[in-house]
């Protein structure tokens, strides 16, 4: 099993609604929780990951801070259209350490995943890492 949400395995961020050039969305898929992407105000916020090949997902883990509601959608098309909701979750508030949340998505095959942050525990939220256990199809 590999971590498919890594830029080194060909995954790309194809869209992010916020941007501070010092904290680019690529930081989400560099495998490192010390680097992060930060939202720059107002909700909702979203980012989309594209995999190099269709990916059969098992488990997804996301490290973040101050995210309240997160919705994950997937697309199995090659051009990031037709997104369907996969999962929706309210995260617990943490102070002084990152939020770590698992999503068990056994059996889902996707070319793109879209992460929509609909609310936060603060004006600004950060996403430090998305890790995905899965198998390329």
């Amino acid at each position: 099993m590999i971590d498919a949400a890594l830029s080194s395995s060909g995954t790309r961020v194809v869209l992010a609604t916020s941007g501070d050039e010092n904290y680019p969305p690529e930081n989400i898929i560099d495998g490192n929780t010390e680097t992060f992407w930060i939202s720059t105000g107002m909700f909702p916020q979203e980012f989309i990951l594209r995999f190099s090949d269709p990916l059969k997902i098992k488990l997804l883990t996301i490290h973040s801070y101050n995210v309240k509601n997160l919705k994950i959608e997937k697309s199995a098309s090659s051009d990031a259209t037709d997104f369907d909701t996969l999962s929706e979750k309210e995260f617990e508030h943490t102070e002084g350490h990152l939020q770590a949340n698992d999503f068990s998505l056994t059996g889902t095959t996707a070319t793109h995943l879209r992460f929509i942050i609909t609310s936060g525990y603060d004006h600004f939220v950060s996403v430090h890492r998305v890790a995905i256990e899965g198998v390329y199809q």
Partner: protein
Amino acid sequence: MVKLRARCILVGDASVGKSALAQMFRSDGAHFQKNYSMTAGVELVVKSVNIPESSDSVELFIFDSAGKETFVEACEKLWGQPSVLCLVFDVSSEASFRSCSLWLERVRAHCQGLQVPGVLVGNKSDLSSRREVETAVAQEWAQNQGLEYHETSAKEMENCDAPFLSLAQAFYALYQDRLQTIQTLA
């Protein structure tokens, strides 16, 4: 370089000059509407503010809301999660000043415990002979509520940008602060 986005809720009693202030700010002082045209819902005014001594900016999405009671409920539905608050009264109307605590309560109910920078604006400072609210009184109340106080005259183009600039800076300061916190976590 970063461009922040802030949802600025603009409230206060009817006819205190909220729309006048928002339009003066938007048009850089080129447009003062003399005849009263009541806002019947929410009018969105968007303008970017540069933060001095940086290449950063804050884009303010100003939700210019109706002051008239009948429209308030509908307006509240559009506020979402406020980033900053601009609360306006008319210095020639004691009643509009007394309403401020109610407006503040209404907006805070949408803030979900978040720290939301705010300003109190005493508008129509040109009407000095009809003044009913003294600066010192407004200033003291603002301070007790954690708001920064500004006096403006949309009519005389006095100080109209100041409340919005100060909100943009406060939001920017909040961003810097949060960024620092997040950096220590990682």
